């Protein structure tokens, strides 16, 4: 036990004495969170919208023409029922749907009050917000043009329904995704490089020729990164809550527990990678490329998985971060409890055990 403690202490020395590692370990996540949270926006140009015109009167045609004339939109005229609307969003056919009820003009002229419904996909809240604003302003504009006087007896009020994300927080999308990305990347990278560094420097030889079961070497390397990743997680959550205004709806303990699971999976992956190579550069490359691309593509925070062709959807199932992302969104954003995510947790648990098992099994007790 004393030996294990001595190992762990040595590993902490290594981490804290290497300024580059520290920078990566802490700087990277913070940078990513802030970047994703603040800086990234989507463009609104040529967004597809569908106009469901049940009224088919002059006014609705006029408004529709105005919408069509705008360069922000690509218009499609179609009648869609509720289900069709949902699938229109799922398939990406529309980013917004404008619904004119049957007696639009009549209501407007006789009752001095008519309603238009604008439905947008707010899982991308930035776009949703902007779209609704554009559409609303075009309608307002029309309104002003038909009654140039100040007082507006005829009013069209738009009722906006943001589905999937009533509060319109952009970060609900990104923060869980960045958490997954950062935890995975950093853990895999750091662990694999740390182990391969020992091989490259020759100290691994000396460690092997000692009474210690080399598996303790590995565990001692994983421990500092495990602890530091949890610290990282805390920082990310603090940033989200206080800077990006994203409170944690559910149980913090559950969040940390699930994160610990992902970290373990990442550490096991790092160990696996380190078994297959003897050069730090190769370890870094494999870790970055092997982890970053699948995580970015298949977690579901940058690109909706449901939009992908089904072979890729199947592939996404073996990416641990995908399950973690669902779990975090459920716990952190929706405030759900364990009952809601026990399936995903089980899957993640299974993956972690599997990875730990093969990485330990493949660990070499000799040089070749």
């Amino acid at each position, binding site marked *: 036990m004393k030996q294990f403690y*001595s190992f762990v202490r040595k590993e902490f*020395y290594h981490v804290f004495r290497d300024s580059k590692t520290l920078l990566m370990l802490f700087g990277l996540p913070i940078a990513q969170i802030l970047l994703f949270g603040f800086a990234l926006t989507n463009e609104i140009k040529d967004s597809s919208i569908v106009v469901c015109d049940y009224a088919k009167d002059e006014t609705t045609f006029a408004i529709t023409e105005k919408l069509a004339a705008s360069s922000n939109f690509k218009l499609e005229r179609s009648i869609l029922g509720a289900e069709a609307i949902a699938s229109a969003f799922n398939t990406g056919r529309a980013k917004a749907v404008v619904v004119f009820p049957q007696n639009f003009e009549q209501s407007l002229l006789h009752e001095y009050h008519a309603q238009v419904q604008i439905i947008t996909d707010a899982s991308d809240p930035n776009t949703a917000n902007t779209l609704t604003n554009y559409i609303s302003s075009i309608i307002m504009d029309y309104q002003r043009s038909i009654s140039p006087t100040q007082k507006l007896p005829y009013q069209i009020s738009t009722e906006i329904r943001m589905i999937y994300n009533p509060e319109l927080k952009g970060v609900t999308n990104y923060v869980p995704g960045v958490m997954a990305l950062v935890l995975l990347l950093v853990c895999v990278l750091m662990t694999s490089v740390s182990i391969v560094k020992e091989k490259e*420097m*020759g100290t691994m*030889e*000396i460690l*092997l020729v000692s*009474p210690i079961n080399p598996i303790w070497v590995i565990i001692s390397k994983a421990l500092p990164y495990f602890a530091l990743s949890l610290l990282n997680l805390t920082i990310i959550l603090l940033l989200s809550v206080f800077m990006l205004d994203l409170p944690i709806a559910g149980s913090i303990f559950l969040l940390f527990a699930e994160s610990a699971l992902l970290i373990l999976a990442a550490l096991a992956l790092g160990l696996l990678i380190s078994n297959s190579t003897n050069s730090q550069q190769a370890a870094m490359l494999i870790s970055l490329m092997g982890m970053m691309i699948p995580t970015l593509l298949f977690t579901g925070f940058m690109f909706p998985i449901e939009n992908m062709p089904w072979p890729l959807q199947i592939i996404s199932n073996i990416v641990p971060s995908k399950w973690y992302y669902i779990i975090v969104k459920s716990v952190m954003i929706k405030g759900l409890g364990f009952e809601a995510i026990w399936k995903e947790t089980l899957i993640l648990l299974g993956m972690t055990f599997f990875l730990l098992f093969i990485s330990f099994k493949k660990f070499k007790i*000799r040089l070749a």
Partner: protein
Amino acid sequence: MSDVILNHITKTYDNGAIQAVDDVSFEVEKGELFGLIGPDGAGKTSIFRILTTLLLADSGEASVNGFDVAKDYREIRKRIGYMPGKFSLYQDLTVEENLDFFATLFGTSIQENYDLIKDIYSQIEPFKTRRAGKLSGGMKQKLALCCALIHRPTVLFLDEPTTGVDTVSRKEFWEMLKRLKAEGITILVSTPYMDEATLCERIALIQDGKIMSIDQPTQITAQYPQQLYAIKAANMSKLLHDLRQVDFVSGTNSFGEYHHFSFTDDVDRSDDLLHFLTNQSHKNLDCHQTTPTIEDCFIHLMNA
């Protein structure tokens, strides 16, 4: 019983493409200072790695302290000390932290075996808070040796400990080894420097994976088949060239200040030779008999 035994050990790499160790057998007695002498690529590191249980041989058996290197590797790993080729300590830990770590690794402490390393450690102790990476080559060597000794191993394996180090540091290192031998530790050292061979009790000359000769250094030089001569002149380069033209002279090799050679029939024809060389306008000729060095023997065995 011998502390280290190798029996027909063979090792190849790249699926048999590279023959690193070719049917090597030898034994090292307890408390012996044994040298494995040969150039890079001769197979020294492979042999050491097999003995320290880091590699499995293709065929043959080997044992250390009576334990088989393949089956009982755990027992061996508890008992031996190992200093691999490159400087393999933690660059970003201090001298003291390194030593402490290795002591703990072997379940002991610096204090327990301090008397063993005291002579060596006292030379680097003033620098004990310095990071190991910032030490000079000679100091790194001493630290590595301390770390290999801190648990009082029964057998010490030193793989090219003096490579790339200047002659002064090399001398000091061998002095340290001699004192360690007095403690009863069996020491196996590999080195490409032939002049270090004489500092060992017994040596094995190895080239291309094969052992060419094993014996005490004095015995090996005694077995040099012919009388060796040393000769020098004002123009050594020309001398070498001219010597090689003489048909009754063979085995000419430069050896620093002198050239070494033998007479082809082992008959002393120095007078004829000097006569010939003077005719070639050589000045300040000095020719005399000399005792062979290990390097002479190595070259002879290589060419055999």
